[in-house]
């Protein structure tokens, strides 16, 4: 296929992916908007007003970046894992596998679908947060870069999950039992400075801590961890996930008999 034809194929996947999550907006866009609004009301406005300051900011200001990032991560991941597994489950992934498009086109088509949903939900949650607090983004470049890299990384991770999933339980295991606990324990609601030394050390093993704090640095200008370390870590994980996805496509693991 020529480059122009690959572009058409890529555009076709992306368009299909975006239309898919827009068509089922009640399942994809509305739930994070409602959930995050509740977080803002309960943790930010009601409980947060009694907590006082966290890391030099009001509690509401402190939790908003983490909650935005949590929405981006879960939605980027969920979009790719549910869409690609659905295609596998109903066998219409074969439409793609018999076509002459390259593995890169297939992979990045699904990844961009996940990134788009992650960013769109991120924008919705950010807009909702403005009803509760004001945001003065301190480092726009860092903010955009970390949110883009993270959504790509988790879209790739969702693709890997979809390839290995045998049923819909396998699709929800990682978001429910891995992503959500790690994000909750990754400093969304608290600064690790509040933890005893041992638990602060344990927290530093959690990759979500770096992602949440890098984004918080972009928005508020403060972080519990080194932001450069966060970027290197996300970059390495993204490259590793990409290489593994390409390996799965090239070998046809779980896709071709």
């Amino acid at each position, binding site marked *: 296929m020529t480059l122009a034809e690959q572009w058409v*194929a890529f555009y*076709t996947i992306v368009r299909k992916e975006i239309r898919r999550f827009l068509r089922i907006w009640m399942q994809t866009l509305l739930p994070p908007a409602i959930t995050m609004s509740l977080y803002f009301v309960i943790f930010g406005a009601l409980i947060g007003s009694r907590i006082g300051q966290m890391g030099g900011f009001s509690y509401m200001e402190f939790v908003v970046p983490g909650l935005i990032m949590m929405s981006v991560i879960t939605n980027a991941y969920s979009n790719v894992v549910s869409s690609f597994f659905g295609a596998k489950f*109903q066998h*219409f992934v*074969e*439409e793609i*596998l018999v*076509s002459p498009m390259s593995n890169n086109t297939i992979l990045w088509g699904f990844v961009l679908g996940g990134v788009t949903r992650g960013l769109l939900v991120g924008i919705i949650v950010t807009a909702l947060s403005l009803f509760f607090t004001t945001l003065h983004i301190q480092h726009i470049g860092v903010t955009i870069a970390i949110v883009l890299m993270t959504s790509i990384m988790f879209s790739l991770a969702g693709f890997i999950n979809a390839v290995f999933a045998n049923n819909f339980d396998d699709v929800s295991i990682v978001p429910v039992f891995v992503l959500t606990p790690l994000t909750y324990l990754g400093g969304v609601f608290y600064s690790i400075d509040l933890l005893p030394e041992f638990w602060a050390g344990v927290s530093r093993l959690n990759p979500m801590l770096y992602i949440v704090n890098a984004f918080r640095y972009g928005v508020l200008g403060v972080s519990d961890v080194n932001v450069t370390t966060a970027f290197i870590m996300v970059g390495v994980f993204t490259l590793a996930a990409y290489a593994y996805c390409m390996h799965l496509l090239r070998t046809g693991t779980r896709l*071709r*008999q």
Partner: protein
Amino acid sequence: MAIALEIKGLRKVYDNGFEALKGIDLEVKEGDFYALLGPNGAGKSTTIGIVSSLVKKTAGEVRIFGHSIDNELAAAKREIGLVPQEFNFSSFESVWDIVVNQAGYYGLNRKVAGERAEKYLKKLGLWDKRKVASRMLSGGMKRRLMIARALVHEPRLLILDEPTAGVDIELRRSMWEFLTEINRSGTTIILTTHYLEEAESLCRHIAIIDAGVIVENTTMKALLKQLQKETFILDVRDGIKTDISIPGFETRMVDEHTLELVLNKGTSLNEVFVALNGSGIEVSSMRNKANRLEELFVALLNAK
């Protein structure tokens, strides 16, 4: 004439150790209408799966219009349109989206994709259903949708795996006509089917596969020539009350107005009519029994 599909020494051993193909060779010429027949589990779908790259081969070579699937896979894939046995489209997408998106996967821009989709949906009688979600279609419509989808990038080789399974007789006939028209326009067609009448009506060449081995590969004409016996059905005007026997012929009363007659190839039918005339039996019509190929198919598999 170019070779549309060339298979050499194709083997497939699945992960569970089952050897589905034991080194088959096959050659399909451009423009042919080719039948691949065999009982369930013979290796037909595995062969098609490998050709269309949905199944990984263990050994052997596959070339599609000269393009090897080992090192020119994209070029080989472009030549093929696949109609699989099972429905494999999104049940939530509309008929239009399914066909247009498939064109997009082959690099056709949306304008060309739309024109092609309109052409094939109209030809296959699905134009009125273009906005309908695919899950709302009947079984026959779903089959036709898969054919439209397979044709939208206008492949030179169309592969159909049991295309008329579960389709009513009327629709099956109209699909036969459509496939014949597509073949006449130059598309090479490979068909697997359980309906031997279908293969006999449509195909010029035939390969019979059993337990991963090709047991016969010839022209339909040559294969039918191998038939040693032919069965005719005679419709009798007045009912026959007693069993009838004609020396030298095998006969069977189906009912009192229908007589089945089996005779060796080359035997004159005159003796039959003389005998029937002598018994005062008048034959109003006569036809060849349609399952000639079926008899041969069973004989070939039994002879193995």
